[in-house]
């Protein structure tokens, strides 16, 4: 009983605990590509601890919306984590149609962040909010097309059911379609998490940022919450891609959790490699990239419906 409970809860705890590590691993891979030693793998944890100990500074213009933004953003991402299966066990709260709630919760976190950005009255943050909602409007249909293709391929309406043990056979039978959907999913993951080629998380020029510029005025614990929520979101999308790509069985919880975490390490490496070898796209090209992802996912759906 206790073992089963642990097997169900541990992946979720790994999600909550290891997300900053994923970010640290990506940074490490990037520094290796650049020929630097780079920050330690655990640096994101130190950053979070440092920020939590700092006193925040609030702009005179802001209201409660500004202070609520990070909290709602974090709550929505954690709640979305309840619906995701991380390997080793199904999700904590799986149900038919849960992926719709999953996507909507991520939408809620975006809504809260964008409103908090506008609450400062800053032009930079207005630009960031505008870009965020614009790109999200193109990313969302692509994400749904991928998920609809998965619904068709697996016959299940829940994330845990889509990413279940039958995936290896499905890859053999429907390989090309799943490959198209997975590619589209990777593009959506890059866009939703503000990574290169859509956004550069390390840029220092306000005019060119997207996600980072929306949080310019947040500081102290608020900024810690935002960074943590961003790492959780990256972990969620990483889990989606890894589970789809690896497709391993649930039946033995501990090995499959291990395989999953190994997959996440691979994901971090791939992300670091993409970020090190690609340039950022011009802002007006981003919607085109996302529409291309939608088209790929649509092809996947057409192949599956054939």
């Amino acid at each position, binding site marked *: 009983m206790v073992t089963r409970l642990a097997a169900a809860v541990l992946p979720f705890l790994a999600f909550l605990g290891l997300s900053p590590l994923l970010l640290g691993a990506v940074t490490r891979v990037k520094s290796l590509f650049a020929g630097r030693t780079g920050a330690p793998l655990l640096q994101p944890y130190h950053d979070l601890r440092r920020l939590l100990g700092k006193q925040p500074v609030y702009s005179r213009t802001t209201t409660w919306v500004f202070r609520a933004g990070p909290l709602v953003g974090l709550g929505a991402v954690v709640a979305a984590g309840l619906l995701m299966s991380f390997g080793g066990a199904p999700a904590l709260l799986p149900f038919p149609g849960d992926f719709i709630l999953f996507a909507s919760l991520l939408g809620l976190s975006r809504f809260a962040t964008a409103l908090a950005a506008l609450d400062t009255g800053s032009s930079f*943050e207005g630009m960031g909010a*505008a870009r965020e909602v614009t790109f999200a409007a193109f990313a969302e249909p692509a994400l*749904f097309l991928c998920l609809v293709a998965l619904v068709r391929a697996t016959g299940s309406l829940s994330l845990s059911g889509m990413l279940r043990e039958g995936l290896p056979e499905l890859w053999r039978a429907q390989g090309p379609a799943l490959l198209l959907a997975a590619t589209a999913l990777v593009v959506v993951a890059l866009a939703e998490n503000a990574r290169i080629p859509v956004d550069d998380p390390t840029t220092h020029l306000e005019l060119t940022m997207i996600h980072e510029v929306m949080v310019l005025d947040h500081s102290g614990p608020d900024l810690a919450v935002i960074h943590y929520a961003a790492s959780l979101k990256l972990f969620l999308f990483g889990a989606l891609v890894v589970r789809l790509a690896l497709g391993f069985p649930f039946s033995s919880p501990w090995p499959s959790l291990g395989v999953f975490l190994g997959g996440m390490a691979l994901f971090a490496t791939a992300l670091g490699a993409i970020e090190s070898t690609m340039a950022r796209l011009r802002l007006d090209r981003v919607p085109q990239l996302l529409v291309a992802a939608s088209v790929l996912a649509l092809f996947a759906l057409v192949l599956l419906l054939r």
Partner: protein
Amino acid sequence: MTLPALLIAAIVLTSVSGLLALAVPRRPALGQALACAALCAGAVLGSVAAVGALLAPVPPALTLPWGAPGGALALRLDGLSAFFLIPVLVVPALGSVYGLAYFPQARLGRKAVRLQILFGLVTGAMALVVTSANGMLFLAAWEVMALGCFFLVITHHEEREAQRAGFVYLASAHAANLALFAMFALLARLAGSFDFAAMTGLRAAWGPATAVFVLALAGFGLKAGLLPLHFWLPGAHAAAPSHVSALMSGVVLKTGIYGLLRVTGFFEAPPASWGALLLAGGAVSAVMGVAFALAQHDVKRLLAYHSVENIGIIVMAAGLALLGRARGDAALVFLGFAAAVLHVVNHATFKALLFLGAGAVVHATGTRDMDLLGGLARAMPRTAALFLVGAAAISGLPPLNGFASEWLVYLASLRTVYDLGPVPHPHFAALGAPVLAFVGSLAAACFVKVHGTVFLGHGRSRHAAAAHEARPAMLVPMLVLAAACVVIGLFPAALLPALAGAAAQWSRVAPEALVGPAASAGASAVRVSVTAAALAAVVLGAWLLRRHLLRRGPLGPPPQVETWGCGYSRPTARMQYTGSSLADALVGSFRWAFFPHRRVLPPRGVFPRRALYRATVPDTALERGIVPALAWTARMAGRARSRLLGAVQVQALLLAGGLVALLLWLALGGGAPW
């Protein structure tokens, strides 16, 4: 008291409520309070009747004789009617409470008295429309509602904007009536009677049935504001007082949806093409509605376009339900129908909330132009918070009611992706899900724009600086509506059994076949509620943690500084991002559909003095379609008009001759059809 008696009492009480103010002409405040109390009492009675009807095993009905040819005073409260009746009565009741502060008779005199009388009359007529079980009665009530709304739109009849909007509305309402008269005449022909009971179970044969469907789509689509028949809607909603806009957008549009569902419910096994047409039309309406909304500056026009969007979502769901009936898939019927009806109720709550909130803003600042507002969350924090609830709900964000109904639309649309049984499934309908995702994220973008521009940041003009919080009589109705948004969003599972019953009556699928899908959707909906609880718990926990960290800190309360502006410390409100710039990139991707009116004075010279950029996006259907077409028709008609035929005497002769010919045809052909 029996349920039909309660219903009749509600209809009579609401219809005459406004007249009560005439009884005490010297005390206008008391008169308005009386009228409002009568309307609220009527709404309570009617809601009790509706809830009772939903719980009753057999729909309560009542038939009384009526002298009109083919007519009977037949009322019937089945599940569909009951679900429409509640918002149709409750939203106007809340609107009239709002009117106590927003449109006081003590200050505005006869204009407000007239508005109150019509407000009650339209409410009663709508209640009759959604409960009548006879075509003649339906048409009579429909006409009263349509004309009452015309007078409500031209409440500010001295303004040119209201005159124009009122005229466009009147013309479109009459075009709709024409289509509906023809449709009911055809239906009565097919069924042999104007009674809905006789029309039920008609065969959806090619020919007359298609004509009925097309006429219903035209007539009810014009009322509901389905693209491209929405052209009257932005102007009318913007020109009317805000509680009238809430009434019209929240519930009057829904009578069009009611009619569409009612008429399609008459037919057995409607062809799949009907469902496909509704699904496609709804999708176009949803996408283009929200696209036009993004391009607006006027907060009420923007909300009006969101009605077009939401009507589109409802029609998509109705189309899916019809597809389910065509394919004999009970679960699809349930999901589509429940999604459509629940979204009707939900849209009535959050759209009324948003219009009332926008009204409070207009009342406080005197302008509807969002780019002149800003920072109102300081002056009117309660309005801002309530508006935010509505904004999140209309964007389909969990855990509010907009998500609950859109989630059902997604499920219905995804159901078509499987192969179920021997009948081929309409897989194309699965594309409804990504379309809905697109619409949802555009709506979220639009409401980030609205809330961010109106309530957050710095005030952009003297209008914003003069704002004040809304009066309690305006806040209470908004609070009730916001509470409804939250409660329905948290517990959607509670409504699903009643929706399944209504779906069974509408589609005449065996109720037992719908129990299973309703139960499984209900079980999932409970898990949505659990996830919402987890969300709330995490937010609360993070809030407590932050409070603890801030308390513990040795540095005292957080310092208050200027917003970061790259070191520039004297920002002005004009440096802020405007709503137009926020939406610019998204509007740009719909540029092919817009024909903006632009006025641009670019900065010139080395020391530019004054620059100006002003762009408005008028309605493409009205400006590029209807108006040129009508102008062309008028020109052609002018050419065809001859001097002889134009004379009054000749016209009278032609009229009389035509009448005689028709009577002869009837007499020789064996009398009237009924």
